[in-house]
């Protein structure tokens, strides 16, 4: 049996994907970027810079881990940016009044998980297209956060543990990076090795077949929405720790960066296809570009332009590659 050769050749099995063309191209792009930038600016490889890149990656990677699962089930969540801002404000407010990191964290997770649950219920029960449903939620959250607070919720608690959440280190590694790594690993293992992960792919590939097989497809989608929400909760708390305040204006456009990273990583908006490893590469590519723009002293506003080009280009390359494989 020629299973192994087939698996690595093209099969869209999860195992095959790791070695599949998409990730390879992305890996090459990442390597090329790193080499190019480091030639132009040798300080790229300094420890401080690498840690800075990783720290910038962490927020996006945390939410992108949830979003990858969600997009694999063929749904999407545009409300994560608005939720990120709101959750930071709520978390900070609870911290200020209770002086307990645990309670603040809990409030943030409860809120963002609740947003995910709401999105999930609207999509699975009311059958509203998730793009539209989450645009609706996004508007509600954007309006809601201003009703909650007109200005930034300042940090009055001065809890060291809270400050560490964003700015602390374990050894040489920043806490957010550790959190992101943990979440990534858990999500990666879930998607690759567990029945739950397999069911998420299955739901994205054919929801009716999954339901006929005696599985609760709606719960699976709901799960992905809630996980995405919880990831936003963690990211929101880290962000407010980094900014030392809950900012109602934070997170603008964040949802687009996250989705860009996931799609760049080869996850299909049609569902059933994608991998977290790709998402990791996607996040790294976007953030290395960001970093390059900064250390090369280019106009920082390029940070918006470049991801736009990259996401279109990457998708286009994916199409060309698929065509080449079919013909």
């Amino acid at each position, binding site marked *: 049996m020629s299973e192994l050769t087939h698996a690595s050749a093209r099969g869209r099995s999860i195992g095959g994907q790791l070695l599949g063309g998409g990730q390879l191209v992305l890996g090459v792009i990442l390597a090329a970027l790193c080499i190019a930038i480091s030639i132009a600016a040798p300080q790229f490889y300094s420890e401080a810079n690498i840690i800075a890149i990783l720290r910038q990656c962490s927020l996006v990677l945390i939410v992108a881990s949830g979003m990858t699962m969600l997009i694999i089930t063929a749904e999407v969540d545009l409300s994560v940016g608005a939720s990120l801002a709101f959750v930071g404000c709520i978390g900070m407010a609870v911290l200020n009044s209770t002086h307990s990191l645990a309670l603040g964290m809990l409030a943030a997770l409860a809120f963002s998980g609740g947003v995910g649950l709401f999105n999930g219920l609207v999509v699975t029960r009311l*059958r509203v297209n998730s793009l539209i449903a989450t645009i609706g939620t996004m508007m509600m959250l954007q309006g809601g956060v201003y009703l909650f607070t007109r200005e930034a919720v300042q940090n009055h608690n001065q809890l060291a543990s809270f400050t560490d959440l964003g700015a602390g280190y374990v050894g040489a590694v920043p806490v957010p990076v550790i959190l992101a790594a943990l979440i990534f690993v858990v999500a990666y293992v879930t998607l690759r090795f567990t029945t739950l992960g397999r069911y998420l792919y299955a739901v994205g590939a054919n929801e009716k077949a999954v339901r006929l097989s005696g599985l609760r497809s709606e719960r699976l989608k709901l799960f992905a929405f809630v996980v995405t929400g919880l990831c936003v909760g963690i990211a929101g708390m880290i962000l407010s720790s980094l900014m030392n305040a809950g900012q109602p204006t934070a997170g603008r456009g964040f949802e687009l960066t996250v989705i860009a990273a996931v799609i760049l990583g080869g996850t299909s908006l049609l569902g059933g296809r994608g991998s977290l490893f790709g998402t990791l590469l996607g996040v790294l590519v976007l953030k290395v570009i960001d970093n390059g723009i900064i250390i090369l002293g280019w106009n920082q506003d390029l940070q918006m332009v470049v991801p736009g080009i990259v996401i279109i280009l990457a998708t286009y390359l994916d199409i060309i590659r698929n065509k080449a494989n079919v013909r």
Partner: protein
Amino acid sequence: MSLASTASAKAEPPMLARLFARQEVALLVCLILVLAFFSVTVENFFSVRNLTNVLGQASLPLIAGIGCAIVFISGEVDISIGSLLATIALPLIIVMNDTNSLLLGVGVALLFGLIIGVVNGYLTAYAGINSLIVTLGTMFIMRGGVYLYTGQRAIPDDASLDSFIALSDGRLFNIIPYSAVIAIVLLVAFGYMMQHRPFGRQIYAVGGNQEVARLAGYDVRPVKFICFIISALLATVAGIILAARVGSAQHTAGLNFEFQVVAATVLGGVSLAGGIGSLTGMALGVLILQFLSNGLRGLGLPTEWQLVITGMIIIAAVAFDEAKRRRAIGG
């Protein structure tokens, strides 16, 4: 031909109008309810001045909504229109400041819009990239481009041409804002195109079932391509009016505008799935949301409530529509 004539007498006249009559009637009833409610609860709501003001405010989403609805009907999405609004204001203001000519400014702005439409349309229709991704990408690129050019500051309109300013506060017969007149003219023109020109019907066919359209001998690609160009040009027109209103080109112009327009379009019964909906529905969707937010402001609610309520209405409207559709299939 005798048989034919009896048959046509039996057939009810306007084809799609008949199909979507109920949807649009429902929306119209909603609009009337909104108007009636606020007329009673808000002083001066039902005055010519206020109504025409709202109409003026509605003109931007109405104009851009035409393009958005047409792209939706063709089975694609365009979420780059908000960034487009900000982008085309740059060449418009710069050229007007340099040349003191509205015509040149508008011409260059339209040229920019055309280029963006061509890019969106080409990448979607010919390169085959998912339109959500394409317009997400161009949205980033354009918004970033504006930031790159302006930094954080606005570029003011130094030319202050009367004709340009009239776009923001001029009124036809001193009653109807010019922007609303432009919106109505465009709405009628494109409404006619969608219902009574072969090209309009091709858009419905392509969005309704791409494979069928192909088998009927249509080339799907140019149809979609042109839809994106229409959308970009209409967003350009909206952007010109917006620039006249704010009197400058600035990087924050049209932020989240695309979501407002998408929301109103969907509320108006235009389906993301393609091939379903009408411009009349879209227009009613825009008006409902505009009058609602105007009325809520009249009631003294903070403006943020409008966002919250709009969000809820959109979810509720689509959920209701979906429930209705499922019942229809089930029954």
